[in-house]
């Protein structure tokens, strides 16, 4: 019978029950913290590293991002008359090294995070999906 603990009165369990009861009655700062995801979304931080976006005017197609990428996510492709990066997000680590390397500050990572898709091909984000124009008044 040596395994019986000294406080056989189960005070520990009662303490635990009190903690959970406090949550049931929501006493103190114990409110629901989760959100109903597809209907409600959390606010993202401004620095959030999501899908890439390329400033159409600033990008010079130099390919530094391509050579910086650790996982060969980026490929420089011709789009219209100019060269722009194309991102294979299926391989992307979202590490942000390409953003740091961009000499023109043309590349940034937007807050887009719902990137799941049905095929691997649709994960390749070509220039048509990542280019944006900087607002003039910005």
């Amino acid at each position, binding site marked *: *019978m040596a*395994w*019986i603990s000294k406080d056989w009165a189960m005070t520990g*369990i009662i303490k*635990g029950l009190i903690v959970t009861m406090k*949550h*049931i009655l929501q006493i103190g700062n114990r409110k*629901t*913290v*989760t959100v109903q995801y597809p209907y409600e979304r959390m606010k993202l931080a401004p620095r959030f590293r999501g899908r890439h976006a390329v400033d159409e005017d600033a990008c010079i197609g130099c390919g530094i991002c391509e050579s910086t990428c650790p996982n060969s996510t980026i490929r420089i492709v011709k789009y219209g008359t100019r060269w722009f990066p194309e991102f294979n997000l299926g391989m992307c680590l979202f590490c942000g090294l390409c953003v740091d390397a961009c000499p023109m500050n043309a590349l940034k990572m937007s807050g887009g995070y719902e990137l799941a898709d049905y095929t691997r091909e649709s994960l390749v984000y070509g220039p048509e999906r990542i280019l944006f124009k900087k607002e003039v008044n910005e």
Partner: protein
Amino acid sequence: MWTGDKMITNPNAYDLIVAILNAIGVYNIILGFFQDLGMEYILRVIIVLVIIAVLLVFVLLTVMFLSWLERKMFAVVQSRYGPMVTGPRGLFQPIADGIKLLGKEDIIPAKADRWIFTLAPFVVFVSVLLVFIPLPFGRSLIVSDLKVGLLYIIAISAVTPISILLAGWASNNKYSLMGAIRAVAQDISYTIPLAITAIAVVVFVGSLSTVDIVNAQSGYWFGFIPKWFIFLQPLGFILFLIACIAEMGRIPFDFQESEQELVAGFFTEYSGMKFAMFFLAEYAHLFAVSGIIVTIFLGGWTGPALPFIPFELTSLIYFMIKTYAVIFFAMWLRDTVPRVRIDQLLNLGWKIMIPLALLNLLLAAFVVTAGVI
């Protein structure tokens, strides 16, 4: 039969239906119809079938509600929402789950014992349903007031581990087998204190009938303490509660499934409808066992009568409130505590609960013999 001229002491659901039919004045017409055919027994069969159907529907609805309640409780304790999308606050989630489980592929492992594997979930479910027969939901709301009701309940609950053993053995899976063996070991060591504490109550009542046990608990001591056996036998109540939770196989004593150790224990290999049967049985068992606790220790359906409402209904409400209080406690406990180890549980059962239960029985016998109560 209660035909209006004489009152029987312990009416059951059959009598209630007859009384209701009488009250609206159709019983004699129907009875006459069947008497003309010379097949009066058919009417009895129909009424019994109606009772069974009502019981089944009631149990199934309760089970659905309980599974929703359990998830919601969990969610509230854990600062989450829980099911929210299906119906008002996710109330129809169990129905969605049921439809999903119906649509699932029914897998039988190649090396499983097909017949026993298929049989086991039904045995579990039926054995749990049978427990409801002598359970008084309210005054005269009882399927059958067996003279040996309590013995019957204990005997029937001993069938559940056998069906679990069937399931575990037939699955031909090591986890299932271990879960089944654990379930049996656990049940053997907990049915004994369960029975002994129940007998301590029987010593006071002098009858095994559940209705008699409830009737014995009506009334008050000193005008305000209800004559529930929990006040007469607090030790017995605690032992019975622990034994019941172990019997139900819920945390902290859920070795038969113990998800983190044995994947899902005895129903690792089950899927689809068979899994749903186990699931239903689990919650039906929770409800049944809580009902038994209420019947034996918490005064069953007794309570103050309200004016203008038939006491059959009031007593049902009292019974449900008490049962849900017990269920709430079981769920609350599940939210809080971790699982005990199997050998620790057996230690608790054999080395502490059985001696204490015997002591409790001795005290009860002493009190009754000395004529204190």
